[in-house]
C-alpha cells in the first residue's frame, strides 16, 4: 500500500469519525468510545480491503463484516454512509423514532449491515456460521468479524473460536478491539483478558498484532492473515484507544463508552478531527 493510498484512507477515516460524532450527537446518546476505537479498522476494511458493492448490498460472494460488538453501530454507519450505502444525512436519524439506524446493528433495517448484533458474544458465532456456509458451498469470500475485549468475557466467544478452528475456517479473520476498557471500568479491574495473543494462539488461531490506528500496519496484518491461510482462522489483535481522535473523549476513559455529546461538543470534536493528523 503506497503513501498516497494511506493518506486517502486516513482522510476517509476522518470522515468516518466525523460521521460517528454526528450520529451520536443526533442520537442523543450512543456508544461513541468504542466506535472511535474501531473507526480506522472499519475504514480500512470498507475502503481498501473488502469486496463489497453499495449498489448491491446483498451481492453474492461479497465479503462480510460482522460487528459482533454490535453497540458500535455508529462506526459501521459512518463507513457505510461514506461508502454510499445510504445518504449521509440519514446519520442524523440515529436512534430517532422509526430510524433504520438503531445504535445496535440490525441487518433487517440497514443496507450493508451483514448481521444483527447487540447481545454480546453472538456475532462471532454468526460469523462462524457464515464462514462455514461459504466453505460448504465453495464461496470465495472472506468473513471479517470485530469483537470487543470486554465482549471476550462472554463464554460464547470461546465456543465460537473452538468451532471455527475445528471446522478449519481460514476464510474467517477476527479483529479484537483491545482498548482495555469496558462500560464499568478497566478490564484489568473487572475480568482481565490477560494476553490475548497467547490465549487465541492456544485456541488454535493464527494470531497477528497491529496498532489499530495505523493503516499500514493493519493492512500488513490483514494481508498476512489472508496469504498465510493454512486451515486455521486468524485473529488480529488491534491495540486501540477508546475514544481515539477526540481529546475530551479519550480523557474520559471508560466513561466514554456511551456518552452524551452536545451540539457544541460535536462541533468542536469535528473541528479537532479535521485539524488533527492521526
Amino acid at each position, binding site marked *: 500500500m503506497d503513501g498516497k493510498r494511506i493518506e486517502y484512507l486516513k482522510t476517509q477515516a476522518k470522515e468516518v469519525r466525523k460521521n460517528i460524532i454526528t450520529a451520536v450527537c443526533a442520537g442523543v446518546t450512543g456508544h461513541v468510545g468504542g466506535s472511535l476505537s474501531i473507526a480506522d479498522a472499519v475504514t480500512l476494511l470498507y475502503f481498501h480491503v473488502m469486496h463489497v458493492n453499495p449498489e448491491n448490498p446483498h451481492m453474492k460472494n461479497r465479503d462480510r463484516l460482522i460487528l459482533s460488538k454490535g453497540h458500535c453501530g455508529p462506526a459501521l454507519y459512518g463507513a457505510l454512509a461514506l461508502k454510499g450505502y445510504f445518504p449521509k444525512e440519514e446519520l442524523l436519524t440515529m436512534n430517532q423514532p422509526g430510524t433504520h439506524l438503531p445504535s445496535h446493528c440490525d441487518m433487517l433495517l440497514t443496507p450493508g449491515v451483514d448481521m444483527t448484533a447487540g447481545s454480546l458474544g453472538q456475532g462471532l458465532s454468526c460469523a462462524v456460521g457464515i464462514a*462455514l456456509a461459504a466453505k460448504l458451498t465453495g464461496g470465495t469470500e472472506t468473513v471479517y468479524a470485530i469483537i470487543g475485549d470486554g465482549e471476550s468475557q462472554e463464554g460464547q466467544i470461546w465456543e465460537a473460536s*473452538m468451532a471455527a478452528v475445528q471446522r478449519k475456517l481460514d476464510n474467517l479473520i477476527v479483529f479484537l478491539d483491545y482498548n482495555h476498557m469496558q462500560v464499568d471500568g478497566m478490564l484489568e479491574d473487572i475480568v482481565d483478558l490477560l494476553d490475548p495473543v497467547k490465549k487465541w494462539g492456544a485456541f488454535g488461531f493464527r494470531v497477528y498484532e497491529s496498532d489499530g490506528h495505523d493503516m499500514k500496519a493493519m493492512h500488513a496484518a490483514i494481508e498476512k492473515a489472508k496469504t498465510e491461510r493454512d486451515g486455521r482462522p486468524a485473529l488480529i489483535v488491534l491495540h486501540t484507544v477508546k475514544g481515539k481522535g477526540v481529546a475530551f473523549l479519550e480523557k474520559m476513559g471508560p466513561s466514554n463508552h456511551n456518552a452524551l455529546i452536545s451540539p457544541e461538543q460535536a462541533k468542536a470534536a469535528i473541528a479537532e478531527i479535521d485539524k488533527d493528523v492521526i
Partner: protein
Amino acid sequence: MMTLEMRTVLRETLAEEMTRNEKILLFNADLGKANDTHVLEDAFPGRAINLGIAEQNILSISAGAASYGMIPIVNTFAAFASRRACDQIAISVAYANQNVKIIGTDPGISAELNGGTHMGIEDIGVLRSIPNITLMEACDAEELRQMIRYMNSVHGPFYLRMPRRAILEVHEPNYKFRFGKADLLRQGKDVTIIASGITVTDAVQAASELANSGIDAELINMHTLKPIDAEGIVQSAMKTGAIVTVENHNVLGGLRSAVAEAVTEKFPVRIYPLGIRDRKGQVGRVAYLKEAYGFDANSICETAIKAVREKRSVANAR
C-alpha cells in the same frame, strides 16, 4: 398401535429433506446418538455436523449460515435447545428473522431417566414470549413427518418439540397436518379437552372413557402452540362452556396459558389445567410421571367430570 420410535421418524424424514434440498443443514450438539441423527453426519458430510456441546454457539452459527441462504436445523434435547440458548434464539435467530429450525427432543417428562435437569418443562413458556418464532409439538409419527416438511418449506424461525421414543399413533395414515389450525379429533358438546404432544393419546383414551360415562367431550390436538388457533378454541368454548388443558409442560406459560389468553379475549370460560403444576422435574418413566404430576388419562377423566359438574351447578344456580 405403537409406531416407530419418533427419533427414527426424525432421522428418516431429515434424510429425505436433506436429499430433496441441499440447502438444509443439520447441526447436532453431541446428542446425535441420543437423537439417532448422528448417522446423517456420515450420509451428508459437511452438511450434517456435530458442533459440540455448545448450544448457544450453535444457535448463532445457525443464524449466520441462514443469512448465507442455508436452512440450518438444530437438533438437541428440548431443555438445552430452548432454556440454554434462549438469548441466541431471541436475538440471532428470531429478532434477525433467520431461517433456522430448532428441534427439541424429549421435552418435559419424556426425558425420563435423565431426570429434572434434562426436563424442558419451560421451553414453550420461554419461547412463546419471544416475538417471531413459531412453536409446534408433534403428537405422533405422521404428524412429526408432516411438521418437519412444513417448517422446512416456510421461511422463518421454528421450534418443534417431540419425544424420542415410540408413542401411540393418533392419526390415520391419510392425516393432513394443517398448520395453525386446531386439530379436532373428536366433536363433543359437554367439555373441551385441549392436549398436545405426548398427552394427546391419554386425552383420546380419556374422551373414550368419558363417553362411556355419558360425557360428550370435544377433543383438540393443539399441534401449533404459536400462533395458537384462538378462533378454534373460542368456537369450541362457546359450544362446551368448559376447557381442560393437558400439557407435558409447566402449566405456567405453556398450552394452558396460551388457551387462557385466547378465551379471555373473546369468550371467558373456566379452564382446568393439567400438566406440571410449577413443580420441579424428577427421574421416572413416562407412565409414572404422568400419574405423579396428574396428567394421565385417569386425571383427565376426573378433571373433565369435575368441569362438567361445576359448569352444570353454576348453570343451575342461575
